[in-house]
């Protein structure tokens, strides 16, 4: 007997959670708050996509949370300096891409293990930021929030942008040669080399793209409020990686789909608000979250263990 695909078991867990909400706390499905929550998770989706790409090619990036904070603060400061939004966005993207490329260079160019490299860049960026800013918030100029749109339109724009980008990436990962190269390198780097693919270039590309996506995510977060907290993004890498692995991407590379990542993120992002809606006290929250993750992945074995 074959085990269930992970997407199915995660989908079932999500459906069960939504079902419980529909029965016990239908207020969860009220439009505007749900829209707000979705908009708050939109950036996380992009970071998770980046993390998925990196993991598919058998690497890991735990520095994305710190990159997120650095880009957020930098963008905030530039905006506060009076740079126009487009320039701020461009600068933030360049910065994020550079940070990602730096990881890529150390991993692919020097051949250092990615867990070590990104651990190092994670603490370096985070502590550097703390040293530099001493925790001060950045106040943004008026008019940057929602990029001047009204709030609902702004939120829809963010969600649409994130989903659009997600769809593009999902399609690219299946229908673009570069996307398939990620899988090839993650599956067997030596076989990829012999097939004329350059594993180092692909790995570098994955980290760089992840950096760019993180920068975009940071921008999408910055425009949702008029202040930047330099602590933002703390723990983001863990959330993204959790969504990726719960969504069925193999940590050993080469396997997994972005659709699963979306499901994984939806599950993880639903749990916390769901518990609030179900009136469960906060001190139970982590235990229940952990149990749900375990149940969701254990479910795929429910139909019988592969021998």
């Amino acid at each position, binding site marked *: 007997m074959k085990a269930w695909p992970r997407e199915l078991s995660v989908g079932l867990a999500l459906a069960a959670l939504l079902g419980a909400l529909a029965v016990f706390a239908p207020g969860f499905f009220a439009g505007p708050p749900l829209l707000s929550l979705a908009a708050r998770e939109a950036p996380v989706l992009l970071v998770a996509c980046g993390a998925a790409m990196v993991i598919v090619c058998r690497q890991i990036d735990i520095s994305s949370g710190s990159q997120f904070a650095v880009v957020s603060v930098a963008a905030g400061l530039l905006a506060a300096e009076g740079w126009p939004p487009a320039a701020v966005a461009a600068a933030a993207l360049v910065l994020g891409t550079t940070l990602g490329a730096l990881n890529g260079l150390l991993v692919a160019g020097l051949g250092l293990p990615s867990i070590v490299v990104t651990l190092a860049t994670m603490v370096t960026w985070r502590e550097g930021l703390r040293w530099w800013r001493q925790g001060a918030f950045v106040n943004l100029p008026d008019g940057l929030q929602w990029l001047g749109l009204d709030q609902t339109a702004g939120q829809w724009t963010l969600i649409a942008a994130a989903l659009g980008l997600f769809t593009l990436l999902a399609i690219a990962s299946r229908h673009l040669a*570069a996307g*398939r190269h990620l899988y090839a390198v993650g599956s*067997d780097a030596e076989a990829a080399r*012999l097939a004329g693919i350059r594993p180092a270039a692909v790995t570098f590309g994955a980290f760089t793209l992840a950096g760019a996506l993180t920068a975009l995510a940071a921008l999408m977060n910055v425009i949702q409020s008029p202040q930047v907290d330099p602590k933002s993004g703390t723990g983001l890498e863990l959330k993204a990686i959790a969504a990726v692995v719960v969504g069925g991407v193999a940590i050993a590379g080469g396997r997994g789909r972005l659709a699963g990542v979306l499901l994984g993120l939806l599950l993880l992002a639903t749990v916390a608000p769901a518990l609030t809606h179900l009136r469960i006290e906060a001190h139970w929250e982590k235990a229940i979250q952990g149990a749900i993750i375990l149940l969701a992945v254990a479910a795929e074995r429910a139909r019988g263990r592969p*021998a």
Partner: protein
Amino acid sequence: MSAPLLELRRLTKSFGGARALRGVDFDLRAGEVHALLGENGAGKSTLIRIITGAHRPDGGTVAVDGRPAGPLDPRGAHQLGIACIYQQPALFPDLSIAENLALRLETGGSLRRVDWPARHRRATALLERVGARLDPHREVRDLSMPEQQLVEIACALGAGARIVVMDEPTAALTQAEQTRLHGVVRELRAQGTGVIYITHRLEEIFVLADRVTVLRDGESVGTRPAADLTEPELIRLMVGREVAQPYPPAERPPGGAVLRLRRLGRRDSGVHDVSLDLHAGEILGLAGLVGAGRTELARILFGLTPADAGTIELLGRTVRPRSPREAVEMGLAYVPEDRRRHGVILDLPLAHNASLASHRRLFPGGWLRPAAERRFTEDFIRDLGIRGGGPFAPAGSLSGGNQQKVALARWLATGPRVLILDEPTQGVDIGAKAEIHRLVRRLAGEGLAVLLISSDLPEVIGMSDRIGVMRGGTLTAVLPRDATPDTVMAAALGRATEAAR
């Protein structure tokens, strides 16, 4: 005469201190099959890995069409029209067959669109050409060793290359696939393709090769037209001495039944209704086509995929091993066919690999005894003639054939009651093969029961006391030891009517 298709001059290559190639000259003409022979570790794979750009030579030149080709990388080699079947399949385990083929064959930038229907069409066509009935959607990790080899062959054919290198393409293939492959090779030759062909099955040389180059210890001992050579001569060139009679005779008649199988099967592996007695001191050969279920049967016996039907009786007790560990405790040993994935652990040193299945015997109480382990390792390195590194060289640094010897050594050391050998001599050179044959025969003489699965038909026939033939997941015939290749093949193909039992 025009410039040769490929010309290598004074190639040298070292790995750390070990010199794999010491100045080899080699050339390949259009429309010829040039066989490359040599003992395990002679440097054959290293040579072709330089041709395909997988390794960079330390010295020497490579010229294609008479023009020097700088140091090649795999991509450059591909563009020059060089395709290769590697000895160790270089496939992507997580991807489908179709995609594996496509990644090796498609050219173009990384921003091109992937045409999945076209990929599948091409894969189907290529698989058909090499005679593999495989669904192109299947993931390579689920393929058996011979199936992977067929995919590799399809890759090399699809490339439409002018130079095709085949490193032991038939190591795990049975007669039927082998014959089919020979047809394909001849077809290529007729089209003007140059083929470099490496094999340890000498009979292939005489039906296929135009010229033969023999490597010994990283040096070429000469290139000759195949027609001018006889088998003993060839062996002498390779080994530098005569090799004794290949198949040692049985010393005494088999004893009582050690292993009895009754209607054994497992639904999802397609094996069903296998009934068989294996006696102490007996070597029972198992023949069949790729996918006939021989490996699957072995995996059932060894507890890798436990049976769900029928019974196994070992030494009079009914058993059903649920894991290899249980099987080992019962006295079974299994040398798997896929040595890179299952047979050895490439990153572990040779000594650790060899002692891995005999921890209890070698290290009572669980404490490692390095000195004892070292002695044990040095013994089998000597006995099996393993070359290319001391006891603490990682197994992955050995040549393919030497790795196979390590895989064998691991199980011979466990002192089993029943030994299951799945392609035990794949990739092993002629000298070592004879050594292994003698060893297996000697162990059988000491009362060991051996199940010998091999696609090397002469080996099965030469070594076995009886020959079982499998087809479609079950045992269809058991032939006596004087069977001829023709009767075995006939049974394997299902043309036999006299299912002797």
